[in-house]
């Protein structure tokens, strides 16, 4: 398999909620080993796009993951194929302990030994999680919850990780940490599709970027190019 092989290809995907079309004809592709970020303002359809890919909402169009058509496949099946979605708002099971949350991440796996090893790796990435293993996940702070969510997703050994707003509601230093970790994870060979509001950070870590505006792709390109683009700044800050 070549270095630049496409791991995920989204072509002409549209999603409708009742009479409202949330995204229309969105197309982009994620290459193996890269971080692609999907940015855009609130309501632009970023989350919907992720949900369409992971089979949580019905969509029209084609989604190919590792050369297989996956549009309409149930999310739990996709997890077994290596596509993990870390949802917006973290999706922590607040009624369970941190450890149980982690174990659920490895739900599809039965290789106890390997899981244990992977857990150690997660603890290396997030030492704070290890300290709170027995604690109820609901009592963690926002940043810790986000770490737990990412760590949990890693335990499924994903080939492609969908991250939805990992910086949401986090203090700036924490945001830095999270992005550092995202980069580390990527360095370990996991492709990442990152949805972010924090455009600046996202464009710093990503290789490629897609800008969504009201449900449509407004721009695509190298993250570094887009970072310099005034369009993006304008979209976010309203600078003239």
């Amino acid at each position, binding site marked *: 398999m070549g270095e630049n092989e496409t791991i995920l290809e989204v072509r002409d995907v549209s999603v409708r909620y009742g*009479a*409202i079309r949330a995204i229309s004809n969105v197309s982009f592709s994620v290459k193996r080993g890269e971080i692609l970020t999907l940015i855009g303002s*609130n*309501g632009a359809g970023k989350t919907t796009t992720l949900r369409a890919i992971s089979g949580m909402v019905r969509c029209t169009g084609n989604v190919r993951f590792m050369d297989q058509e996956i549009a309409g496949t149930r999310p739990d099946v996709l997890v077994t194929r290596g596509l993990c979605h870390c949802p917006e708002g973290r999706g922590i099971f607040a009624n369970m302990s941190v450890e149980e949350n982690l174990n659920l991440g490895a739900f599809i796996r039965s290789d106890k030994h390997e899981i244990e090893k992977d857990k150690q790796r997660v603890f290396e990435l997030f030492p704070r999680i290890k300290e709170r293993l027995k604690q109820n996940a609901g009592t963690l702070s926002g940043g810790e919850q986000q770490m737990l969510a990412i760590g949990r997703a890693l335990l499924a050994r994903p080939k492609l990780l969908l991250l939805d707003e990992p910086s*949401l509601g986090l203090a*700036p230093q924490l945001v830095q940490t999270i992005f550092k970790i995202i980069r580390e994870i990527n360095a370990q060979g996991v492709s990442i599709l990152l949805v972010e509001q924090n455009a*600046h950070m996202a464009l710093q870590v990503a290789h490629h970027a897609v800008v969504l505006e009201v449900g449509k792709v407004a721009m695509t390109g190298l993250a570094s190019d887009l970072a310099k683009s005034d369009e993006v*700044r304008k979209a976010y*800050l*309203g600078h003239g």
Partner: protein
Amino acid sequence: MSDYLLDVRGIGISFGGLKACDGLTVQIPTGGLHGLIGPNGAGKTTAFNLITGVYRTQMGSVTLDGVKVDHLRPHEIAKAGLSRTFQNIRLFSELSVLDNVKLACHCRGRHTLLGTLLRTPRFVAQERAMTARAIEMLDVFSLQHLAGEQAKNLPYGDQRRLEICRALATEPKVLLLDEPAAGMNPSEKKALAQSIKLIREQFKLAVLLIEHDMGLVMDICEKITVLDHGCTIAHGTPSEIQNNPKVQEAYLGEPATA
């Protein structure tokens, strides 16, 4: 007695130790247009919920036109003259557009069960007055041609406008708009900005606006308050805000020096 129409002083609430809103102060004079901005999860909507009584404030006070309204129940606050829209549109989706607006006229009427059942002259007249007023309101927003349609069948932009229209039909003194431009395209946004200004003139009310679209906020607001993690991080005119390093950091994640 305060000089402001809406005087919010130091309100706050925390959910299980997390301070969702901490000591927010917003003061709007009659006819003022005030923006409330901040990144996702900064506590803007929580602030709205506190002001409109959906949550009880744990500290601070809210005064509307000289009347203390915190600790009133939401419908009483609405009656006192505070009306709002919602971030994730909360129309009465199975009801017709007209009925949505007529419902908003509700709090200015008197409704007895006996009158309803017997269709007393008073009741009939009031219904008619409500209908007339609702149609008038729809007219202002050019929605009258959709009056008979179920609200859920409206296109997104129209739903947003209907929500504002509905909020105005309660005859408020202060209007709270929660991300009215979300999901609108640029031309719709432009029109929205126009109509917000127009509304303020025509209905002589003060507006408190939550918005993500900075262009819109900077364009129409006289004063802006910026929230992050429940705290007020900046307060001032649009240009002051735009150049405030703290705001840039909160928004773009850029260090202040960038």
